[in-house]
């Protein structure tokens, strides 16, 4: 009873898109728990500096503010891409996806620059429990952003090759969920890690 080759392959039915959206939503919830536990770990270990530097020695307010602006603006530009998708305007979708990609890449570059500076100053993740927790939390978010960038690239190719077909636009919707979700996590990061760290 194997599938027979002469039967025509078909696009999924309508409910399938709804199921995928919900499934992706559940994945995001699961991911949110990962971040929640990394936040908890960071909070628990914030004092375990082992004689090394603490947040106020390392963090720079303008730098973090810049990162925040980039990511926040990229959320807006992704929203504009979604609006273009609603309007069925392929070129505008591609344009806004491109802008979002550049903003995300800028964010990532700033983060790598920050990490690089810290590591060269001897404040790498192996320095103390506090720094292990800091690097792990922030770079997990960074890895998600990188995955999001790859996702944007893949979707850009799909939009170019396939147009705004039903399957492609449903994937774009899920990419949107992912991107906005990352911005929400970032709110947590600057509010739990950077700002209290500077105040301390």
């Amino acid at each position: 009873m194997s599938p027979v080759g002469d039967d025509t392959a078909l696009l999924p039915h309508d409910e399938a898109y709804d199921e995928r959206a919900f499934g992706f939503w559940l994945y995001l919830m699961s991911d949110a728990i990962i971040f929640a536990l990394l936040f908890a770990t960071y909070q628990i270990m914030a004092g375990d500096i082992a004689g090394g530097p603490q947040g106020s020695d390392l963090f720079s307010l303008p730098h973090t503010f810049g990162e925040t602006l980039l990511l926040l603006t990229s959320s807006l530009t992704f929203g504009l891409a979604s609006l273009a998708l609603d309007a069925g305007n392929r070129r505008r979708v591609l344009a806004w996806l491109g802008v979002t990609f550049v903003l995300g890449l800028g964010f990532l570059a700033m983060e790598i620059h920050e990490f690089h500076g810290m590591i060269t100053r001897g404040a790498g993740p192996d320095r103390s429990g506090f720094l292990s927790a800091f690097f792990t939390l922030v770079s997990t978010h960074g890895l998600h952003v990188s995955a999001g960038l790859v996702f944007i690239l893949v979707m850009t190719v799909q939009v170019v090759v396939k147009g705004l077909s039903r399957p492609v636009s449903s994937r774009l919707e899920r990419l949107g969920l992912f991107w906005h979700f990352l911005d929400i996590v970032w709110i947590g990061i600057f509010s739990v890690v950077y700002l209290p760290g500077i105040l301390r």
Partner: protein
Amino acid sequence: MKRAKAAGGRTLGSYLTGYVLALVLTAVPFGIAATGALSMQSALIAIGASAIVQVLVHLRYFLHLGLRSTPQERLLAIAFTAVLILIMIGGSLWIMLNLYYRMWA
């Protein structure tokens, strides 16, 4: 190819509103941290409060979550997640702070 309905009624207005609100809610805590105008405790409370409000803003204006427009199972999922996050973070902090206190007091 209008799919506005399926997308939960998102408009340019909603994104712009969200963006401006988010900017304000980012500027406030950063301002507090930069100026050091408040005491440590009230600064932390203010930062936490703006973060929670900003998360809600993102959910509303970027993810277009609405109590009626969003499918019920998604709302349930996010509510349940919120409860669990509270239990896990709250429980972990409670346990670990208690242990810290008992191990070093």
